[in-house]
């Protein structure tokens, strides 16, 4: 039901927007009780473990933290490279 009127009237720039964005990140870390640095090294270890078993496209790996109600969700999108080429060779 969004019209151009809604877009015009509900534009929210400035400091409230900044507050919301900053809070989003802060709350994710508070709830998980994990620092940004730890989160980064966890991601790297996940990639490392999976790489031991399958070939993955490291550049396309996406691991992010999503908020789902009061729960945080670690969402990993890890594309696995097909082995079919190597088999036929």
């Amino acid at each position, binding site marked *: 039901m969004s019209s151009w009127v809604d877009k015009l*009237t509900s534009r929210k720039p400035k400091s409230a927007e900044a507050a919301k964005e900053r809070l989003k990140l802060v709350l994710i870390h508070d709830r998980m009780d994990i620092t940004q640095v730890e989160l980064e090294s966890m991601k790297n270890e996940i990639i490392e473990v999976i790489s031991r078993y399958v070939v993955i496209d490291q550049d396309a790996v996406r691991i992010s933290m999503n908020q789902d109600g*009061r729960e945080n969700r670690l969402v990993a999108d890890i594309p696995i490279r097909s082995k079919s080429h190597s088999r036929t060779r």
Partner: protein
Amino acid sequence: MSASVSTITSGKGGVGKTTTTANLAVALAGMGKKVVCIDGDIGLRNLDVVLGLENRIVYDLVDVIEGRCRLRQAMIRDKRMPELYLIPAAQTRDKSAVSPSDMVRLCDELREEMDWILIDSPAGIERGFRNAIAAADSVLVVTNPEVSAVRDADRIIGLIEAEEKGPAKIILNRVNQNLVKRGDMLDVPDVLELLAVELIGIVPEDEAVTVSTNRGQPVVLDSHSKAGIAFSNIARRMNGEDVPFVNMDDKSGLFDRLSRMLRTGGD
């Protein structure tokens, strides 16, 4: 009769817990309910001055718990209301004088004769907070639309869940509609999205709160004050009434009308 025990807490100090507790207590009592409010902030007694009952204190919460007086003797009756009582906090003791099980026992005794027991929690996440929620059937979290208050509210909501007292409900206090319109204050939907809990009240920033607190007359007694109306709406929601949210209504009402008008070319 079995009272409902509701604890008002926040994490961060200075967001309006005590003002909220006092006003909800007066509003519920004004609706004909039997209400007792308990100041859980031992060592930093304040609910008495906000209610204007500071000159009538003889015994306090710790006196009851340590058996120096009967429960009834520590209940100060607010004469403005038919059935409103205050159990003040001790001023010369600290939180360790009370345990969570003391609070449960005290509230069980009060439940028999009351409709509502409101507990004003101290700020923080330690002993005082745990005492305050021990007996709670429901927990109301007061917060302001500011980063520090919202962050602390989130922490406290998590702790309330961990203690199996959740889900908590939010009272968003001191909303300044001018700042919100300018884009310089978090709006109600922003805070609800961040905290992901149910809303039970929006209280606008209102100078009448300061004026009425100066006099020891809770702002709900002033039927013209916006904050007073907001507090009495919360009290009605606590009693199960379906009361529309004032601020959001004003705004969506205006916006809806405006956009409908422009979409249909006027009506």
